[in-house]
């Protein structure tokens, strides 16, 4: 019988997984919350704006376009755009079936989305990552954007976030963001990498033989660097945006030189007049679905990621993971992982000779991810940027001082009680933005011993979101429809 593989996320990893699973003979359902495939990387212009320029801002566009057409047009592929997985329902202990996939289909802001449930033979999770942004005084002012949001506006909607923009944070992603803004017509005043040149050079320069296979990536970065140079945009290392100020909207930012641990070097502050600022301190993997599926996570210096084996299989039978949720390594790595995951999820032979180069590419990409993390770490000194009244949780407007007082309370300083007491992370974004920040701040202040495991009480984690996407009460009250019911019941 044909295996049914459900793939969550149609970015580079998910699309590759779909192509590979189709090739192995499976029936595929590919879902994404967006209207179009491509994810954050191949963000497509809405139809109204689509122009021949589309290809120009995208790397590997032609290849992506071929892949997209092949997958979406395949007779065994069901493409579900605007489809949100709101719950993964784990099987009973001992049952090797992957979780049931509960989906809401239709425009998120429209009335009456369809509620569906899928019973896959295998599940590939490729939901990707979103910007990680550290708080600083004024980061909640209008006009301060995550770099990803600024790029999405520039690439997807042709909207410029401002005329005079400073871009700051950490990681190579700052460069394509700068390029997108320049292309869209903004004056980028500076691109600030918080890590000192020493750290960046050490990360990129170590074991140079690992870099050769990523030449494409390096070439891409060189292109961006050339673009910056042409537009006389300075790229500075060891400097960061540590404050944004303005009356109701950002009017100026304070930048400062940082030590290697990201503490501010006093006396190096500079005030720059801007009408927008873009910040990105790397990426947070979207871990609520792997967490809901019961997948083990692995802790790294840059935070937790989904644990996978050499076959991209998670700790849960039938559940595979590909792309940024296994480690931030960029689109080429995501593609290699997706191809492997899709093939194996479809029941393709693990010893198939064409997997060998894929595994090699994947391993090189992982090494590259390690190098990236080493070159652009988050310094431990960033909480020094915060003041007592700096908002940490934007949804609930919980400030740093309140959080510290709650964390220092002997009677209630644990994560759950602090969360309920300060409401940090309980707002509409459900800790997607502030979760890692709050967890890190609490970890540093926690005086007591960590709790011992208890039956029925999962450890507090910012990724625990049993409702993975908001659902209206009316939608929830309706029973789900199984689109394959007839086929599944003999």
């Amino acid at each position, binding site marked *: 019988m044909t295996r049914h593989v459900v793939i969550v996320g149609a970015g580079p990893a998910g699309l590759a997984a779909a192509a590979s699973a189709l090739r192995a003979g499976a029936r595929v359902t590919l879902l994404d919350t967006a209207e179009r495939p491509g994810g954050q990387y191949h963000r497509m212009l809405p139809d109204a704006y689509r122009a021949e320029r589309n290809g120009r801002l995208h790397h590997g566009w032609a290849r992506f376009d071929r892949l997209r057409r092949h997958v979406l047009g395949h007779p065994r592929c069901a493409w579900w755009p605007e489809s949100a997985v709101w719950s993964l329902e784990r099987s009973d202990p001992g049952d090797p079936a992957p979780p049931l996939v509960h989906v809401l289909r239709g425009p998120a802001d429209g009335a009456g989305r369809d509620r569906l449930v899928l019973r896959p033979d295998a599940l590939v999770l490729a939901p990707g990552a979103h910007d990680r942004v550290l708080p600083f005084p004024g980061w909640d002012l209008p006009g301060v954007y995550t770099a990803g949001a600024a790029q999405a506006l520039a690439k997807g909607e042709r909207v410029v976030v401002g005329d005079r923009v400073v871009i700051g944070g950490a990681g190579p992603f700052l460069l394509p963001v700068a390029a997108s803004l320049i292309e869209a017509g903004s004056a980028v005043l500076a691109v600030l990498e918080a890590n000192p040149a020493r750290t960046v050079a050490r990360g990129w320069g170590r074991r140079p033989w690992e870099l050769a296979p990523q030449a494409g990536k390096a070439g891409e970065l060189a292109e961006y660097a050339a673009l910056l140079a042409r537009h006389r945009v300075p790229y500075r290392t060891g400097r960061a945006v540590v404050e944004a100020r303005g009356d109701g909207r950002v009017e100026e930012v304070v930048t400062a030189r940082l030590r290697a641990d990201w503490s501010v070097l006093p006396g190096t502050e500079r005030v720059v007049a801007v009408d927008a600022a873009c910040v990105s301190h790397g990426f947070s993997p979207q871990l609520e679905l792997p967490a809901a599926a019961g997948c083990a996570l692995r802790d790294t210096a840059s935070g937790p990621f989904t644990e996978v084996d050499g076959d991209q299989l998670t700790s849960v039978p039938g559940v595979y993971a590909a792309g940024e949720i296994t480690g931030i390594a960029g689109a080429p790595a995501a593609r290699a992982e997706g191809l492997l995951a899709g093939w194996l999820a479809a029941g393709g032979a693990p010893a198939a000779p064409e997997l060998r180069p894929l595994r090699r590419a994947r391993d090189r990409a992982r090494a590259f991810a390690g190098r990236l993390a080493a070159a652009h770490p988050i310094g431990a000194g960033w909480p020094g940027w915060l003041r007592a009244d700096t908002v940490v949780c934007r949804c609930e407007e919980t400030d740093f001082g309140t959080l510290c*007082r709650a964390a220092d309370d002997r009677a209630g300083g644990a994560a759950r009680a602090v969360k309920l007491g300060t409401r940090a992370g309980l707002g509409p974004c459900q800790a997607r933005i502030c979760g890692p920040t709050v967890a890190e701040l609490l970890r540093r202040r926690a005086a007591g011993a960590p709790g011992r495991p208890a039956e029925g009480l999962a450890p507090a984690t910012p990724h625990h979101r049993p409702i993975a996407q908001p659902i209206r009460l009316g939608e929830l009250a309706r029973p789900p429809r199984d689109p394959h019911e007839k086929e599944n019941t003999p």
Partner: protein
Amino acid sequence: MGATRVVVLGAGIIGAACARELALAGLAVTVVERGAPAAATTAHGEGNVLVSDKGPGPELDLALLSRRLWPGVLDAVAAHLPEAAAAVEWEPKGGIVVATTAGGARELERFAAAQREAGVTAEPLDAAALAAAEPHLTRDFALAVHYPGDAQVQPAGTATALLADALRAGAVLRAGCEVLGADTAGGRITAVRTSTGTIGADAVVNAAGPWSGETARRLGAPVDVRPRRGEVLVTAPMPPTVFHKVYDADYVGAVGSGAGDLQASAVVESTRAGTILLGSSRRRVGFDERIRPGVLSVIAGKALRLFPSLAGATVMRAYGGFRPYVPDHLPVIGPDPRLDGLWHATGHEGAGIGLSAGTARLLADLMLGRDPAMDPAPFRADRPAVLSEGESR
């Protein structure tokens, strides 16, 4: 000879309340908590302080005692720890119970009459009064009864405040510390062995909630307290829509039922943060912590029967927890008949937040040989429902 040494096992609401009463009475209290304070059952409920859902009997008496005690307890905490007391978010908002069928109305009418006999204020509301009290509630109802005595708290904040007051009074907290066993001499407990060392004790209070059965077993005196699962939905913050604790009359039946399969009834209320909490479910599934979409769907459907206009409200979160369940639905408060020095304060099922004030007072009365605030006999540990082997999970 120093003060009597009491080790309280569990820093949920019951342990915190007991530790506070005993520390204020001058005992040398150590609170042992395996995880973190107020992080398990206490953090996963709705913060019910209810008299409305209890029929005449010992549990209602304990609820009424607790309801009388709460304002004084919170004033006393506020005298020293005003911030902690504010975090309790005490809301004496009252409850409204709604029957939507003729049969349900007859049941509710009988139930409320019996409660009035027992001293509960329970006022029927006509359509106009109900519409004024809850403008968004369905007009399609058979009977509505208002219980001004019902209140709500933020449960983790409440437990934290009680524990903070206990610490202020000299209690010591050992978190991340797991009970492994007991040292005994001549049928009397002399110490608790834990993952971080042995703690000498003249008395030990088992307040481990749904884990009380296992804790008591480790101490050598098992009691039949089992987990009963519950789930709650949380909406995104909304403009004020629900003004009381509103629930359908089925809730009383579900609370009193011992069935293992899903019992669900609508319990709808708003919080200070603007979110609306939607409960509730009761299932006996051991410690299976999976959140089931089917259960959430049933809760949503029942809530919409009461508040049809919430159909467009966005649910952004769901959480689940385990209630400490005893087959005869009564808490266990008192000395263990088999092991001298061991006391139990557990088994409150879904009512522990509200009942903690009375439970702590009664336990302290018994331990200190004071005149008890109410008759403790119905809660004694040597009743068959508590000491039976119980069904295997």
